[in-house]
Every structure is written in structure tokens, then in C-alpha cells.
């Protein structure tokens, strides 16, 4: 019973991932598969950022750097060393984790706005570095030859495989998020979020704890980067480190409710679902950016705590399920 209470918060997130995975299978439509992939990718990225933003209270504007860096490392290993997608994904995740460890050791001594500004600088610096790094193709990036898809059954089957891998990574991200939230380590992060000085007094070794939170939040983005660019067939610095994508992930986390497992999932689902609908809607497709901006404005004005925060506040009995 105790275990059930502790882990009941993971049920809804898993059901959401399962539903998203089954949606294209049941409908049998490739376009639904692509839409679901975009949402699953956003869920994986938002849930990862939530470990840092929601649990630890540190705003990272440049979290997309791990997605881009991991993607580059993975694609390089795929093309130059002919690694399989699976080992390349693992390597991309580990490379991003190592990068987060090195960066975290240095910049997590900063707090608040100073940390947020430093993360923007890191993303731009990494973009400039990759732009001038010939091993990764410099500004032209890395383009995959179609023969890369052969071991996965050709381009068509590779896209299907990528979709299931994306679902797996989204699941990994939420399980990781849940484990962190329900662990003693997560409790330390929440203490840091509420008052870092007090947390230190209570025995939380804050620099080390924050660094590990940063590392954990970077691994899945690194893996999803490899998968996305494998699926797209090429990677360029411009696509790998888009600052606006970092802000979109922040918006998703806060839209759903930061600091909860389900919040970023709902935020990612709502945001990408809305963008996907608007961009293909006959009526809205020419004004989709304006409409999505106006809708976000309304949500921010009236539900500033995010959807889950609002629900938890209004209906206390749901607090255990909406963890």
C-alpha cells in the first residue's frame, strides 16, 4: 500500500505516453505518427528540464545545448565510425551528461538570473564552436547517406523504428523524473528550490546535488537529439542549437506546472498539440504564430501556476495522483 501511494503519480504519465504511442498504431496513419513523435520529443525534453527547473528551481535558457551536442556526437559516430543507432544514442546521452557535469561544476555556483544568463551564453558559445569545428562538418554539418537506414529496413522502416525509440525515450524521461521526485536526492533538490542556504544548513551538499540534477536533466535530451537528427538525415549548427526551442521547452514546463511529473507532459502535449493543429488548420495556418502567442498570453494571465498547479490547488484530493 505504501509503495502504491508513493508511485501513484507515475500512472497518469505512463498512460499518456502509452496513448500517444498507440494513437498512430490504431489509426494507421503515418501523419499521426509524425505528430505523435513531435509531442513525445517535447515531453522528453520538457520532463528532463523539469528536473532542473521544477525540482531544483534553476532556470536554464540554454538547455537545448545538450540536445544539439548529443545529436552531433551521435551522428558523428553513426557516419564516421558506423556505430548503430542504439549505441550512438547512448553515446550522445553520455556525452551530454559529461558536458553537463563539466558545465555544472563551473556555473552552478551562480544563482537566479546570473545562472540563466550563463546558460544562454553556453548555448551560443557551443553553436559558435561547432560552426568552426571541422570534424563535425563546420557550418555544413553532417549529412547522412541513405545507406545508414538499410540496417533498419530502409528509410520508411527507420522512421517507424525512430518513433518507437522516441516513445521509449519519453518514457525513460518521465520515469527518471518520477524517481528523482520520490527519492531522497529529489527531496534535497526541492529543499534547494525553497531555500538554498537553509538546505545547506540542513545537510544538503548543494553544489554536488545541483550538478547531478543538471547531469540527469541533460542525458535524455542528448539521446533524443541523436534520434531526431538520425530521422532528419542531417544536422547543422543552426538546427542543433536553436535558442527559441529552449524557450519553448521552458514554456511547456511552466504551462503544465513545474515541479510535478505530469505537468511538463501536459504542457508539452498542449503546446505542441496546439502548434501542430494551428499550423495545419485551413483557417489558422497563415496566422498560427499570432494565435499561439495570444493563447499563451491568456493562459499565463489566468493560470500562472500551470495546469497541474491550478488543479492541485482547486481539488486537493487529486494531489496524490497529480504528482
Amino acid at each position, binding site marked *: 500500500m505504501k509503495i502504491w501511494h508513493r508511485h501513484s503519480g507515475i500512472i497518469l504519465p505512463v498512460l499518456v505516453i502509452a496513448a500517444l504511442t498507440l494513437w498512430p498504431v490504431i489509426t494507421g496513419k503515418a501523419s499521426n505518427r509524425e505528430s505523435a513523435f513531435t509531442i513525445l520529443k517535447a515531453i522528453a525534453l520538457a520532463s528532463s528540464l523539469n528536473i532542473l527547473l521544477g525540482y531544483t528551481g534553476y532556470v536554464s535558457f540554454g538547455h537545448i545545448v545538450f540536445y544539439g551536442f548529443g545529436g552531433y556526437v551521435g551522428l558523428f559516430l553513426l557516419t564516421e565510425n558506423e556505430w548503430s543507432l542504439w549505441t550512438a544514442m547512448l553515446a550522445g546521452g553520455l556525452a551530454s551528461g559529461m558536458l553537463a557535469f563539466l558545465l555544472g561544476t563551473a556555473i552552478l555556483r551562480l544563482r537566479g538570473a546570473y545562472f540563466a544568463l550563463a546558460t544562454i551564453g553556453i548555448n551560443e558559445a557551443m553553436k559558435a564552436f561547432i560552426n568552426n569545428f571541422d570534424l563535425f562538418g563546420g*557550418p555544413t*554539418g553532417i549529412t547522412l547517406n541513405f545507406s545508414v537506414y538499410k540496417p533498419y529496413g530502409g528509410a520508411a522502416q527507420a522512421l517507424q523504428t525512430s518513433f518507437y525509440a522516441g516513445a521509449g525515450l519519453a518514457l525513460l524521461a518521465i520515469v527518471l523524473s518520477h524517481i528523482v521526485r520520490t527519492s531522497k536526492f529529489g527531496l534535497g533538490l526541492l529543499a534547494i528550490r525553497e531555500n538554498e542556504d537553509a538546505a545547506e544548513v540542513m545537510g544538503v551538499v548543494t553544489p554536488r546535488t545541483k550538478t547531478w540534477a543538471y547531469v540527469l536533466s541533460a542525458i535524455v535530451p542528448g539521446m533524443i537529439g541523436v534520434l531526431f537528427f538520425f530521422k532528419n538525415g542531417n544536422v547543422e549548427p543552426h538546427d542543433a542549437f536553436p535558442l527559441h526551442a529552449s524557450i519553448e521547452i521552458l514554456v511547456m514546463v511552466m504551462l503544465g506546472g513545474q515541479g510535478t511529473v505530469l505537468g511538463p507532459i501536459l504542457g508539452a502535449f498542449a503546446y505542441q498539440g496546439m502548434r501542430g493543429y494551428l499550423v495545419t488548420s485551413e483557417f489558422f495556418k497563415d496566422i498560427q504564430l499570432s494565435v499561439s502567442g495570444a493563447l499563451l498570453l491568456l493562459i499565463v494571465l489566468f493560470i500562472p501556476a500551470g495546469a497541474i498547479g491550478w488543479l492541485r490547488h482547486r481539488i486537493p484530493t487529486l494531489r496524490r495522483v497529480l504528482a
Partner: protein
Amino acid sequence: MKRSLFSVFTVLIVVGVILSACAPGATPTEAPAGPAPTEAPAEPGAPTEAPAAVEKTVTIGFTSSLTGSQEVSSKRQVAGLNLWMQQVNDGGGIKLSDGTVVKVTAQTYDDESNKERVQELYTRLITEDNADFLISPYSSGLTAAASIIAEQNGKVMLTAGAAEDDAYKTGNTSLFQLYTPGSQYLLSTVDMLKKLDPEAKVAVVHENDKFSTSVVEGLKPYLESEGFEIVLEEGYASETTDFGPVINKIVESGATVLLGGGHYPDGSTFARQLYERKVGLKFVSLLVAPADSKFPELGDAALGISTSSQWELAATHTPEEAAALGKTWYGPTGEEFAAAYEAATGDKPTYHVAGGYAAGLVLQKAIEDADSVDPAEVKAALEAMDIFTFYGGIKFDTTPEAHGLQTGHQMVVAQWQKDDTGALVRKVIWPTDVANAEPLYPVPAPQQFTGLPAGAGAQRPAPEPYSGAETCSNSISYWHHYPTAFFWVLSMDWQPWG
């Protein structure tokens, strides 16, 4: 309560203004509405001897960049394609030997100049909208992502605005390129320089992106083989708005000629700042931006700026040229195309417009040659194609190493000069057999344009020292897409996390 009512009103007003300002009907590149994709007998009462005329509508699917960095060029390309569709439908469609009349309609989405949704949108175009043929997005990176979807669904994709060579060397067999490949973009400019000034010292300064870098990769070995000294090679970020540090390097290098650029936003800014700094280069050639009809809005800063162009009306290709080369001529003349475009839009066509139109024209020819709209047969017709249009030669590489790469098309060099009335016009200056003006070389120093006494510009002035910031990358340009998120995050209470 009053405050929340005020908030609601404010939001409603903002939403109202946005919606009224951005009504879908205001979009100039809206695809012409075609008939529903159905097959229906055209004339039920026709005599029984004649083959039954069946009308068939094919859907052409593509994404375009209605927003983002590729917006200007992408919209021109779509405008050209729309004109072709309009003409085909108004002319009664494409007629096949079995009596079928093929009309065309378009389905299009905004890709925001962003790769994130390109595969999703092309999958939707193929599986939901039942697109029969595809046109590529504008830019090489977006096209590379879309080409995988085209390949896996066996759909032909004609590419205009995707010049970079690598996308055609991936082993795909679905792409067919309309543009001269990126690696050959500036070669004719080098040929011209060789004649004008073999001693020129060349600075190669380009946007750090896939297309511009591929152009430079083709340019550098050619410059060296022709005996030119490259005194500077520098890349700049796509979002650059301050070219001060780059211009300083150009001045310090002692370069007399500048070759490079990238796309419209950076290219037009670069040209303006070169003028404002009075750098006094003898010759400047930039990619893409000077080929746009908006470029003269820079005023005197546009004077003398050259570009490599896929097509210019002044040097349009003719049936006589095709006959001399022994090629089959197809489609309207350049003058007919330009007049039709001007009548439809009130604007003069650029090479991006011509590229979009030519993509449609080539597809039309392939359908006629195949005498079918079956993708496999149209693809075979494209592979066998070797024709000449107003846009130039069209022939595709059919080897597995570079399938679909354009091998029949040549570029010209155009330069902004002043006509007798003092208005800026784009003149063709190379190759000499199609040129309608002599190259303006060296380009007069900037003082001569600003009303200074005669002779003041005869001696090149020293460039003004630069005192601005040393960083040239400016990513703030992204914010305009996400104003809400920006202000929201800024207004967050940082205190509890500090």
C-alpha cells in the same frame, strides 16, 4: 475585480487586433483554389468516337517559409509556382493522349524556416492531403529532411532553392534540382574577375550556413587555380546584424574584392554597412540578397553590388539559343513569363520567382513526356529530360552518386547600376554574350553618391574606424516569434530561487 476585467479587455483587444491584421485573405502567396481532387467526365454529351475527356486534378504539396529567416526568398518561389498553376488551369490543363486533362492544385503549410516540423508536414501532405508531386521547401537543410519522406513514399520532389550539393549525394532517387549547384555559384564571377583584374586580392566573407559554405567550398579552389590571392576567409553567424568587426578584418586584409554573403536579411545589412563604413572595395558580389527586387530599397548602398543569378530577364534564354545548342525548347519566353508575373502581382520577377515557375514547368513537361501522372513514369521522364526553357537548360544527373543534381543550367552575373534617370537597375554583366551592360569596375567610392563636390571620390577615402562591440552574433532576433514567453519569463519572480 476591476483589474481582472481590465486584463480581459486588454487581451481581447490584442487578440482582435492580431486577428484582423493577419486575416488569411491578406496572404499574397495563397495558392489558387483548384477544383476538388475528383475524376469526372468533362463533357458528358461529347461524340462517342472521341476519347472521353476525363478531368483529373493532381495535388502539388510543399511547405513554404511564411515566417522566419527564409521568408523573402521562399515567398517569391511560391509566387512563381502559383503563377504556373494559374496558367495551367486557365489554359485548360495538361492534356494527355488518352484524353485526360490534368489540372493542378496546391496544398501548402508554413514550415517557419524551421526543421522541426518539416517531416511531419511532408508526411501529412503525402498521406492526408494525397499530394501527387512535391516541391521542396526553400533552403538546403529543410530539403534534406523532406527528401527522406519523399524517398520513403516514392514521391518525386522538384527542388528550387536547395542548391547545396550534399543533399543530392545521399543515395536518394527522388530529388530533381532546378538550381545550378551551390559549388558552382560563383565560378562565372571569378571568370569575369580574371578578365577585369587578375591582380585582385579577394576577401571571402560568407554566412556560416550550409548553402553559403558549400558555395565557398566550390569557390576557393577555383580562385586559387585561377591565380587569385585569398587574403581573408571569414564566416559570420546567420543572425548577424553588426558587421563592424568583419568589415574591420576586410579593411586590414587589404582586400580589393569581396565575394560571399548568404541570404537576404544578412546580405542586405552587410551591403548597407559596407557602404556606411565607406570601405571602398573595387567589387562586391553577395549571394541571394542583391537578386531580390527589394534590394534597391538600400538606395546608393546597392550601387555596384553584384550577385550570381540563376536567371535574369535581360539575359533570358531564347528558342534561338536552344536551337543553336540542338536542345528542345519548352514553355513561354522570358518576356511572356515576366509580363504575366507583372500583370498578376505588379512586381518584377526575380530568379527565385523564375525558379518556382520553372519547377512547375519542368513537372508539366515530365507529365507530358510520360503521358501519365504515375509517379514512376514521371520520374523516368525527368531522368531522361534534356530541354531548354526561358530559365535555361534542364538536365539531371542520373548516376547513383549524385542523382538529381542539375547539370544543364548556367548562371549569370548581375550588378546594380544606375540608368539614365538615376534609378537603380539590375544589369547583366557576364557572360559577355548575354550581357546588357559593362561591369561597373571599380565601383565608385561611396562619397561620390552622397552629393560631395566633384572629384571628392576620386581618391579612395580611408575607412572609418569602428568603435562598436566586438561580438557579431545576435540571437535576439529569435524573440519576435515568442513575445509572450519572453515577457513572461522576464516578469518571473526570481527571488525564491535566488
